[in-house]
């Protein structure tokens, strides 16, 4: 019954999306009552989609095995949190979640956006409805999550145990909220291109969505990176896997968009760039989610390939992205350009930021798609790995970091003030660090060395915009920028330190053996079996010490029975200056010795701490902008009254 109700809600929502599209286009700008009607339709569509998603959640919580999707992806014995998370741990459920977020985002824009020109808003809502309509059709015709299974099986088929992790349960929804939040920027850009009304008002309408989406993407990527680090047991934090790239590309585009939006909002400039980036950011989200998840690019995360679904998705993407890019090509020449500026100015620095981020985005896109294109062109199978990405994106990211030391300190329009004084703290710290690494660690790689130096120099440089200001009166958005840039500095130092100073030890041991890694002395104490709710494991107890005090680490090799899978639970000891990372491998049957892998990773935690700081900075900026908008509105109302 619940499944049928959910399906009905989905059909109704799809019908409303069609209605919204027709109304918004038919009204040719949709003023007055028509816009009010469209707003109502958009809200109803959002609520119905949410109801459909709630129905699927209930089916998963009850483990209703008469529903095909539940039977294939869940199991009655699973802890309830994973039953809940199982709702989106599969193709159909994740698509439903995607559409739900899309429809709700549309409803929120329709309901709360009051400052934008009504014609532009009308066309934007038409674009948002068109997006939703396509994905509703995809769900209903090619990926119905509510399909029944008759007869119902006695037990479900489980969930990938790798996904049975509290962090990962909420990782996909966070990323989806980020991806789909960018859909609003896309729709607003389409609306503005149709009416040729690209200006500061549009930037201000777009900014909270981009900021919010960007914060969620930042946090989602950071959390995903930490998950891969401790769950996969390889000791790495980024693998340039197509799925990781799929989340990185929208993030890069959104980061560029965020910066160019500020130019558009404050100075009315960079109109073409901003529109392009708004279209690209969501296009990348769609390309990322759909192409990778449909298995067109091979990845460890891939869902099974289904040619019908693949073709359906390809048609949708071609329609949306193709139409948007064509609209851009036709209209952008007639959009008025904003105020001119000097190359040496805040605008100039932000253009450089945009260029470098776009080039990095292009590099990641080429690297991700190259195997596909190469096979199409020459029939040769190949894969593109970390050496390509590190060698190309790495130096560009470092140049970007160097620019970050300068850009935020420049004035708008043109800057003729004395430069050296403002830049001195950052440069002094960077050079001092460079000299220190040359003396103390002469053998580390050039990229790591420069990363350490620039990261260190970026610490004072990112705080410099706060210098000489009354801190309590400094806008939250400025605080947000400084904290986010500080986060970049922290992450950069963490990455460089991890690649320069990591010590690795792969050895075999029996209980009682002692292993040295970096400053640590680690003793393997015991290996014994333990049991969890739906797994059994071999657990190694390690005692680690570096001078004073002993830490106990417990690492497990887990065996899941439904389905049969082994996972490595790394044991991680976090110290103020880094992490000791231990993984238990297989037993060598002949000798009775156990494989043990140990890593000492100095300052690796800064990578994720930096990611969190970047997200926090974005959040502060978002709150600051809201607060300011709220206050001006109140003042406005008071004045009117």
């Amino acid at each position, binding site marked *: 019954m619940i499944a049928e109700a959910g399906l009905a809600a989905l059909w109704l929502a799809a019908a409303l999306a069609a209605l919204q599209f027709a109304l918004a286009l038919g009204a040719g700008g949709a003023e007055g009552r028509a816009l009010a009607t469209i707003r109502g339709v958009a809200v109803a569509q959002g609520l119905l989609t949410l109801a459909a998603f709630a129905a699927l959640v209930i089916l998963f919580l009850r483990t209703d095995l008469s529903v095909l999707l539940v039977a294939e992806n869940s199991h009655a014995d699973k802890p309830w949190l994973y039953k809940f998370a199982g709702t989106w741990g599969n193709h159909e459920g994740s698509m439903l979640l995607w559409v739900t977020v899309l429809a709700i985002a549309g409803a929120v824009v329709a309901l709360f956006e009051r400052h934008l020109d009504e014609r532009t808003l009308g066309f934007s809502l038409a674009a948002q409805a068109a997006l939703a309509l396509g994905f509703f059709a995809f769900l209903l015709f090619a990926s119905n999550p509510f399909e029944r299974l008759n007869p119902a099986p006695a037990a479900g088929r489980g969930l990938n145990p790798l996904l049975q992790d509290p962090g990962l349960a909420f990782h996909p929804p966070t990323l989806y909220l980020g991806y789909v939040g960018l859909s609003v920027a896309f729709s607003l850009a389409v609306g503005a291109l149709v009416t040729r009304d690209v200006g500061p008002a549009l930037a201000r309408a777009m900014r909270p969505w981009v900021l919010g989406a960007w914060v969620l993407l930042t946090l989602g990527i950071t959390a995903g990176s930490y998950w891969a680090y401790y769950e996969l047991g390889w000791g790495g934090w980024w693998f340039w896997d197509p799925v990781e790239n799929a989340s990185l590309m929208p993030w890069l585009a959104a980061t560029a968009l965020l910066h160019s939006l500020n130019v558009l909002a404050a100075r009315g400039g960079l109109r073409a760039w901003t529109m392009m980036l708004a279209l690209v950011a969501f296009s990348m989200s769609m390309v990322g989610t759909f192409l990778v998840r449909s298995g067109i690019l091979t990845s460890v995360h891939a869902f099974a390939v289904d040619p019908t679904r693949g073709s359906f998705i390809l048609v949708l993407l071609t329609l949306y992205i193709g139409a948007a890019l064509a609209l851009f090509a036709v209209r952008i020449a007639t959009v008025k350009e904003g105020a001119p500026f000097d190359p040496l100015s805040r605008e100039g620095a932000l253009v450089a930021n945009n260029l470098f981020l776009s080039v990095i985005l292009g590099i990641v896109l080429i690297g991700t798609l190259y195997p596909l294109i190469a096979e199409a062109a020459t029939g040769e*199978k190949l894969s593109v790995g970390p050496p390509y990405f590190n060698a190309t994106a790495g130096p560009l990211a470092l140049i970007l970091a160097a620019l970050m030391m300068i850009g935020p300190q420049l004035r708008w329009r043109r800057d003729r003030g004395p430069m050296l004084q403002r830049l001195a703290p950052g440069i002094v710290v960077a050079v001092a660090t460079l000299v220190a690494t040359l003396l103390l660690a002469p053998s580390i790689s050039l990229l790591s060395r420069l990363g350490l130096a620039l990261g260190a120099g970026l610490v004072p440089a990112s705080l410099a915009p706060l210098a000489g200001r009354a801190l309590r009166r400094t806008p939250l958005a400025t605080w947000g920028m400084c904290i986010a840039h500080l986060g970049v500095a922290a992450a950069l130092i963490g990455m460089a330190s991890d690649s320069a100073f990591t010590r690795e030890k792969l050895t075999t041991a029996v209980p009682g053996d002692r292993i040295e890694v970096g400053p640590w002395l680690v003793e393997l104490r015991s290996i014994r079996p333990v049991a969890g709710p739906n797994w059994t494991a071999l657990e190694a107890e390690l005692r680690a010490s570096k001078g004073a005090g002993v830490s106990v680490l417990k690492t497990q090799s887990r065996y899941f029975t439904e389905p049969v899978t082994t996972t490595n639970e790394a044991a991680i000891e976090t110290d103020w200056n880094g992490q000791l990372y231990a993984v238990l491998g297989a037993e060598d049957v002949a000798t009775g010795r156990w494989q043990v892998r140990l890593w000492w990773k100095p300052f690796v935690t800064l990578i994720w701490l930096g990611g969190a700081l970047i997200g926090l900075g974005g959040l502060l900026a978002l709150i600051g902008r809201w607060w300011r908008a709220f206050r001006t509105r109140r003042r406005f109302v008071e004045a009117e009254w």
Partner: protein
Amino acid sequence: MSRARFLPLIVFALLVVAVAWRLATPKDDRVASKLEGQKLPAFALPPAVPGKPGLSSADLATGSPRLVNIFASWCVPCIAEAPVLLELARRGVPIDAIAIRDKPEDVAAFLARHGDPFQRIGSDDRSQVQIALGSSGVPESFVIDRKGVIRAQHIGPIMPQDVPAILQAMEEAK
């Protein structure tokens, strides 16, 4: 902004073509060996166990296709593969083997325990022939045609579901 504004659209169109091609061509996850279609490198290996001849490249260009299995007594997946090789031998597939970094007594014990489908076994105690064949691990198997040309490479153990593909490759190598 004159012509450049069409650039994103063109790039996207190329992307669509590539993806459409991928959808139209059925996915083939098999990574073809660079050596497929090439003549076997010349080698001559001493016997790995007493009482059974060693293996040289001349033994593999005999006018009928043969399967060459690379294995080792210390290799666990090779145990999993052993019954399938026996079944292939029972169905009339001539199988030779190369034992990698092994000792005669260990190989003999392995064959006594898990069955012996092999007609000849060469001992490659420094992995030199293995490397020349482009093989990176054990077990691996090669289908060699009647002229001594490599026709197929199977990486990892041959499991029951791989048998039809192996038999077909043997058939095609005739």
